[in-house]
């Protein structure tokens, strides 16, 4: 380390006397955005969105039969890795602050915890939308290239309607990850929580539906995965929309409210 000198140190500058202006939300957004990309792990996570989309597209071109080289196939092939990586990014945006203990600095520089967390939520949704746009673009390139290689017609069988409900489904998945990050404030616990949501719960619901006819009839109102599954098909009936809403309140809004309440009051160490 270099030698230390305090003689003409910048702290010796004259004391500012005006009361400082409040920190604008825009600035918090900018800082939080920077924090998503400024570690190797963060950078790779973001890069993996593109890498996975390209990999899925390439896999479809290589392995799908010629008549399946349609935009719909590309869109659903890309959707699968996205449904895993995007919620993980959302989880980490919250939980890593706690796991890395950066909350100590974050919340002393911005004491209003809700502002930091809102900024993270806004960025998570924005990132979800941008990622899905990039993914759709990569899927479109895949359709053009794939059909050209196979010498078949381009088939645009996924219209704006279904594409937008797919984006919605992915955003809901991200918000679920975000909610788990808020609820657990610990990376491993939140990731395990997400796999319970994505893998264990659906299994339980399938079993329930097979043994209980009442549940089988009303499954759409309780089984969040089942209700949101319709978003990937598109063309939802108003009952299906209502089911997306009701399951969203039970499985997303409610636990999010509990988690936020705890987060705002918890002790930061």
């Amino acid at each position, binding site marked *: *380390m*270099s*030698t*230390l000198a*305090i003689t003409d*140190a*910048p*702290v*010796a*500058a004259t*004391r*500012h006397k005006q*009361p*400082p*202006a*409040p*920190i604008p939300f825009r*600035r*918090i957004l*900018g*800082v939080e955005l*920077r*924090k998503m990309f*400024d*570690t*190797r*792990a*963060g950078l790779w996570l973001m890069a993996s969105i593109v890498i996975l989309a390209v990999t899925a597209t390439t896999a479809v071109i290589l392995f799908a039969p010629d008549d399946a080289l349609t935009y719909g196939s590309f869109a659903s092939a890309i959707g699968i890795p996205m449904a895993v990586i995007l919620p993980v990014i959302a989880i980490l945006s919250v939980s*890593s602050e706690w796991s*890395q*203990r*950066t*909350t*100590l*600095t974050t*919340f*002393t*520089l*911005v*004491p*209003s915890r809700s502002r930091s967390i809102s900024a993270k939520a806004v960025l998570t949704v924005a990132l979800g939308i941008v990622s899905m746009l990039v993914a759709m673009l990569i899927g479109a390139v895949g359709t053009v290239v794939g059909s050209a290689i196979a010498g078949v017609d381009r088939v645009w069988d996924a219209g704006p309607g279904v594409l937008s409900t797919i984006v919605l489904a992915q955003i809901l998945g991200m918000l679920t990850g975000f909610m788990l990050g808020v609820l657990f404030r610990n990376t491993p616990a939140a990731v395990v929580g997400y796999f319970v949501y994505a893998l264990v719960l659906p299994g339980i619901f399938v079993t329930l539906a097979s043994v209980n006819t009442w549940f089988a009839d009303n499954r759409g109102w309780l089984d969040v995965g089942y209700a949101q599954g319709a978003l990937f098909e598109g063309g939802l009936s108003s009952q299906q929309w209502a089911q997306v809403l009701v399951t969203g309140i039970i499985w997303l809004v409610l636990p999010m409210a509990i988690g936020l309440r705890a987060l705002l*009051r918890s*002790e*930061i*160490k």
Partner: protein
Amino acid sequence: MINVDSLTKTYGRFTALQDVSFTARPGRVTGFLGPNGAGKSTTMRVMVGLTPATSGSVTVAGRRFADLPNPGLEVGVLLDASAQHAGRTGREVLTIAVATMGLPRKRVEEMLSLVGLTPTEADRRVRDYSLGMRQRLGIATALAGDPDLLILDEPANGLDPAGIRWMRDLLRGFADRGGTVLLSSHLLGEIEVIADDIVVIGNGRIVAQGTKADLLAAAGTLVRCRDLAGLQHALAAAEVDFTPTPDAPDALRVDADPEVVGELACNYGLALAELRSADSAGLEAMFLELTADTQREGVAA
């Protein structure tokens, strides 16, 4: 100015802080002294709103910390130098802090050179930092906003002797320019060389507070005499309290000014081998005594 008013914090049935009140004044370095687990860090976390208090309140510069519009510009805080993202570079950690406060980017380089982190070191990831480098980075973050107040939890932890010396001068200069400094330590020697005021906490309660001069005076006089029995007799007759000290077999620590002890010895015709104000030895004895019931070792001098 930091004002701590009847702070109480309980964790379940455990009382970590009980009715803690003290003030850190501008232009002075206030040392917050106490053994491990006394409640220093807890008090500081409550100050900056990271730990909710059970009752009582803290104001910094007359307001609750949470009500400060841009706290980094008014209060520099260093609670735990190890609490940084391991994957960020030192420079990045500072850049984020500086950006949050809305300061120009050049502040990052200024602060790095202030705390003696070289550009190569600044580009290293925090996971590869030594404890002392983390501490310097933490101090850089605390000072970046050119605050009027500093709250530092064990800032000397991990610093080398030159670093400790440098920090002492830095905090002295900061207070001399009118700043308020509150720093904690469990090391008396560390606090003694730098603090103007001392607040001693033990077991979640304030056990002593005052200016260093007052506390030193209260620490009494150290006296050595070959005729120890005679001296003890003379002191007892004059109803002056005294205690043996572990330093020497023929020495006593007396709760009176050296002048009083000297006159007494003269009256009794006792030849003294040494007579001086007890200073740090006395302060240390007092510190151990005051916090005796909280000492893990269970013994006091």
